[in-house]
């Protein structure tokens, strides 16, 4: 059966959010295609991880457990995917557009000669006609992605080669439990059948991975600052407002590049995608790459001293003024009137 596979990333025994988001998307695509959703976890000490996966609707969880398979290195993981896919012939394979997925996906796609689409922002099922070759295709994966620095959005298809492979960034798809008691099958694979000793050519000597402390993705309110905030000092105003109204602080890339905020706070095409109920954009001009990551916010307030800033066109409230002037007023009103 040509099923849909999701490669699940795991760190400290926890399946990455991006993988759960892809399982959710994969579930709905699999329903449309009438095929199974299969998850693949490669690592060490994997006993029981299927419990984190089944609620998202996986029909099968493949576990490849070997202490040499953690931490991740390219070739051993690639070999598992390549050999397993030769055997199972999936029609689709999804993985996170993370430093792991973007290292692994291309290597696997090259070995299988199957197309890989990077950083998709939407995945749909549809038909395709190749007029030149006089062929038509049903049930292809439409892989929709921005390219060209965010200036265009392209729909990419892989008509002939399988699996159709795509990577997706964290936060782009929604994660949703299908049922806490969803039942699937666990299949333990023998690592030595898929990986050879000669795959272990890169060794990890040192590794410092921080757990993400900042979680802007699920924050209901985001106060985001741009280059217009002016300094790291001024960014404190944003933290004050955020602490007052129960929000998280986000940032544009220009603000991150200028050192006003940490990289994990970056919102946009090359940062995270957010959809809070309220987004307050402070000193952000609203370039395409930023808007791509926050346009689905339910309500947007723009604070900018330029009445013609592009962000204003998508804002529900446009406040023409400076961050230094407006934020203290908001904090003051809320502190006086909230209790």
């Amino acid at each position: 059966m040509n099923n849909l596979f999701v490669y699940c990333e795991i760190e400290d025994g926890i399946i990455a959010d991006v993988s759960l988001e892809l399982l959710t998307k994969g579930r709905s695509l699999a329903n449309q295609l009438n095929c199974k959703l299969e998850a693949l976890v490669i690592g060490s000490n994997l006993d029981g991880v299927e419990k984190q996966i089944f609620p998202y609707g996986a029909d099968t969880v493949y576990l490849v457990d070997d202490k040499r398979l953690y931490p991740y290195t390219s070739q051993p993981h690639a070999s598992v995917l390549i050999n397993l896919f030769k055997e199972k012939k999936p029609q689709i394979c999804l993985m996170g557009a993370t430093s792991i997925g973007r290292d692994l996906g291309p290597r696997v796609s090259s070995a299988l000669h199957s197309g890989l689409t990077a950083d998709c922002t939407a995945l749909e099922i549809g038909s395709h006609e190749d007029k030149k070759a006089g062929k038509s295709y049903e049930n292809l994966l439409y892989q929709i992605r921005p390219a060209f620095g965010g200036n265009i959005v392209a729909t990419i298809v892989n008509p002939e080669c399988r699996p159709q492979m795509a990577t997706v960034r964290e936060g782009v798809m929604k994660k949703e439990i299908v049922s806490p008691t969803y039942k699937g099958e666990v299949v333990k694979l023998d690592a030595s059948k898929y990986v050879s000793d000669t795959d272990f050519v890169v060794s990890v000597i040192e590794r410092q991975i921080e757990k993400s402390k900042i979680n802007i993705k699920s924050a209901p309110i985001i106060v985001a600052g741009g280059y217009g905030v002016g300094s790291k000092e001024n960014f404190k105003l944003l933290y004050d407002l955020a602490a007052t109204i129960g929000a998280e602080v986000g940032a544009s890339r220009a603000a991150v590049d200028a050192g006003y905020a940490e990289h994990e706070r970056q919102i946009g095409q090359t940062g995270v995608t957010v959809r809070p109920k309220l987004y307050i954009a402070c000193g952000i001009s609203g370039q395409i790459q930023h808007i791509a990551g926050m346009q689905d916010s339910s309500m947007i307030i723009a604070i900018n001293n330029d009445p013609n800033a592009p962000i204003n066109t998508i804002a529900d409230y446009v406040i023409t003024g400076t961050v230094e002037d407006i934020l203290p007023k908001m904090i003051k009103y809320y502190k006086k009137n909230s209790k």
Partner: protein
Amino acid sequence: MSLKIIVLAKQVPDTRNVGKDAMKADGTVNRAALPAIFNPEDLNALEQALQLKEQYPGSTVSLLTMGPPRAADIIREGLFRGTDGGVLLTDRAFAGADTLATSYALACAVKKMKDYDIIIGGRQAIDGDTAQVGPQVAEKLGLPQITYAEKILKVQDGKIQVKRRLERGVEVVEAKYPVVITVNGSADDCRPRNAKLIQRYKYAKTISERQNQDNDYFSNLYENRPYLNLTEWSVSDVDADLDQVGLAGSPTKVKQIENVVFQAKESKKLSGNDTEIDELMKELIVNHTIG
């Protein structure tokens, strides 16, 4: 110890300044309508290579680029900064390649260049934004890969140690070379062009570029100074299989391209005086958006 290094570098349209005519009707890029630059992260890769060359005397750095004839600029840009030479891979048959067909062509050229210890490129090109070519070249050559590199720490006893910058941290890895490395923008910036090298190489040209300069002065120049002849290879020069290059060799097809336009909303405009801000905050509290 001396190293043979190949730098993969791509000429890219400057996507930070994109106009309306950037895409053709068939969904391919109209490169002619955009200023062409050295892909930024490939400059970071070039710098790592040049640093190795300085550290290990006798090492050589060659640059490999695939693109239209004008991509010869990239080879000159490399020479101006200290590379020893380069190859332009150019052929109409390469046009319309996806990352897989691109990697196949580059891998064929690398095989033809024969001796190499380190193949180093940028993490990602700013037009396709995929970061796929590096790992795919590694797979095609059967080599290990080290992506997201920020610094080459040391090369010793046939092994190379590299610091990688990941989303949430850093990693130091070690591998035997030959190896393919892709470099992040967070690595050292590339040195500027060197004035002496510009003087030396400004007339360096490929055969096709020289066709328009067919007078005696120039033909003598290229005979007397062989280092001014830039190598140019076609599909047949690198023994590439025509079915695996260009559009024909690309499993992914661009079905549709749309320019990005965002739907403008009807917005309420506020001047930011005290009363207006108070009213806005009141409304947000009353309708439970905040609080």
